[in-house]
């Protein structure tokens, strides 16, 4: 029997492929949440940034790749509607998380509010920009120029 370490041809059928994709998706979100939690805990414990920069770079690389691919394909979210209200809620959540994490780390809620508000504003701007980019791209994909 011929030994083969890697086979270019997909060895899964369509149902197995779908199962594998959902396993990979769950794995991705598990790693995403785990990395985020690990980074936040290290910030709260005031661990030197040199110790968690690796996790941060991997986390951001994953986030940026996912964001770019979603925008390129005109995708937003399965369950969350693309509108300003949901973006405000998202930005407020980011604001609260950053305020709490910095507040716990440095013990001053007033000082923690400054990076919290800045994060919230930046998050809102980014969400709005991405939402419009995704809508624009979806319209482009819905109306291809070479059709008809």
């Amino acid at each position, binding site marked *: 029997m011929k030994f083969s370490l890697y086979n270019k041809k997909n060895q899964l*059928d*369509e*149902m*197995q492929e779908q199962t594998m994709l959902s396993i990979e998706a769950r794995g991705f979100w598990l790693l995403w949440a785990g990395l985020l939690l690990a980074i936040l805990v290290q910030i709260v414990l005031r661990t030197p940034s040199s110790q968690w920069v690796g996790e941060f770079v991997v986390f951001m690389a994953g986030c940026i790749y996912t964001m770019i691919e979603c925008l390129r394909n005109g995708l937003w979210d399965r369950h969350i509607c693309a509108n300003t209200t949901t973006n405000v809620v998202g930005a407020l959540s980011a604001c609260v998380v950053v305020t709490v994490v910095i507040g716990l780390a440095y013990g001053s809620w007033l000082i923690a509010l400054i990076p919290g508000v800045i994060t919230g504003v930046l998050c809102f701007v980014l969400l709005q920009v991405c939402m419009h980019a995704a809508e624009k791209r979806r319209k482009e994909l819905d109306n291809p120029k070479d059709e008809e």
Partner: protein
Amino acid sequence: MPKNLKLKAARAEKDMTQSALAEAAGVSRQTINAIEKGEYNPTINLCRSICKILGKTLDDLFWEE
């Protein structure tokens, strides 16, 4: 999704096991089993492939009244 008894009957009519049908369609036995049990919704390509093997039409095997 309801069970696909028409597929099971057509397979039995041809005296084929799930494994034989799976091999002919180029999928795993668990996929054929899941289709028959109504646990998996196959793509149109797989539906066509199964229909060709069993000598049936898409309406015969996959249309629900």
